[in-house]
């Protein structure tokens, strides 16, 4: 039975009709047309769908849209402000932390959440934090470098 769900996404109040089985990522991609959040697996492991819900990173493929009712959601599209990249996005660009770009939105959203929790993460802590974000292109080398630099820039 379709129901209406309302939340704030990237600072804007939005609402839409969904089924209970509609995933948050489907609502974001299909209803809102924000296609920067991706789907790369069906077992909640790849992390290409990571967004922030009420300030915390979550896998939007493993949350129902109805569970996000009233929440504050931030997607990759909401990270840059006034046409200026977020320091973490800038660090990924500077350090070649992306290749095909598919894992990148989830990677960046996870990285931003890491720095919220740990202002000066070590290489080990960064690698550990990325357990839920798969990348097939970069071998993680430059992602790790980018996140370390992004953390410094966010300080």
């Amino acid at each position, binding site marked *: 039975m379709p129901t209406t769900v309302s939340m704030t996404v990237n600072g804007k109040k939005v609402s839409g009709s969904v089924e209970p089985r509609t995933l948050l990522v489907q609502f974001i991609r299909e209803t809102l047309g924000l296609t920067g959040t991706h789907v790369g697996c*069906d*077992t*909640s492991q790849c992390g290409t769908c990571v967004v922030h819900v009420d300030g*915390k990173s979550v896998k939007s*493929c*493993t949350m129902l849209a109805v569970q996000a009712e009233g929440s504050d959601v931030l997607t990759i599209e909401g990270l840059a402000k006034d046409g200026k990249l977020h320091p973490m996005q800038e660090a990924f660009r500077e350090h070649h932390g992306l290749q095909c770009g598919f894992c990148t939105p989830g990677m960046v959203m*996870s990285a931003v959440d890491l720095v919220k929790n740990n202002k000066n993460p070590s290489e080990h802590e960064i690698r550990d934090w990325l*357990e*839920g974000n798969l990348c097939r292109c970069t071998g993680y080398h430059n992602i790790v470098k980018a996140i370390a630099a992004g953390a410094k820039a966010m300080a």
Partner: protein
Amino acid sequence: MYSFDYQKAGSVADAAKAATGEAKLVAGGMTLIPTLKLRLAQPSKLVDLGGIRDLVGIKAEGGGVTIGAMTTHAAVAKSADVKKAIPALAVLAEGIGDPAVRNRGTIGGSVANNDPAADYPAACVALGATIVTSKRKIAADDFFKGLFETALEAGEVITAVSFPAPEKANYQKFRNPASRYALVGVFVAKTKGGVRVAVTGAGEGGVFRKKSFEAALSKSFDAGALDAVKVDAKGLNSDIHASADYRAHLIKVMAKRAVQAAR
């Protein structure tokens, strides 16, 4: 996913009332939602516990901690009370899934699901925790009943898990390289009542106590005490990631490491 109805429960009583028939409770949903996505379950209704505030929070009580069922793994990992009373439990929570999973996944959901490779069941059993439900209090030893099976009855909702503080404890997990669940996880706790050792990930029937280890360690809480104890591979899982023999070997290695690291 198959189609289902959705209800956000306002209270534990609401949830208990709604969770009948083919309806299912959803806590963090970290296991349930992937299961639904693969169409491996077909509930008529999901009853969401996410709105019940009473179920969230950690209380330090009598030296131990009581953790509300809807408390996330991330919150347990960060909790100063948990770190003080049972540091091993905070470390265990920090090692569940990945950060995004820890932000949604809850202790109540994990315990109710009783995945045979999950971490919390080992902690509950080794620490002698009490599972508090809408109806009663259940000792961990009586709660976990086999693969994905628990003592929970229909309409019974976990509200909290109480952990008494051990003298020393530690959890060592050897991760499945792919899923990152425990291939073998061993929780060792030295408590006033003796040593308790619980093993997850390895057993065909889910979490189990390793009584022979407990006996040896109760005599002498030293890794060397386990040297002479044989681990039988019978009853252990064998799959593409590890044979039963290897799991048996790892149980001892992990247990020894846990004893060495216990504090």
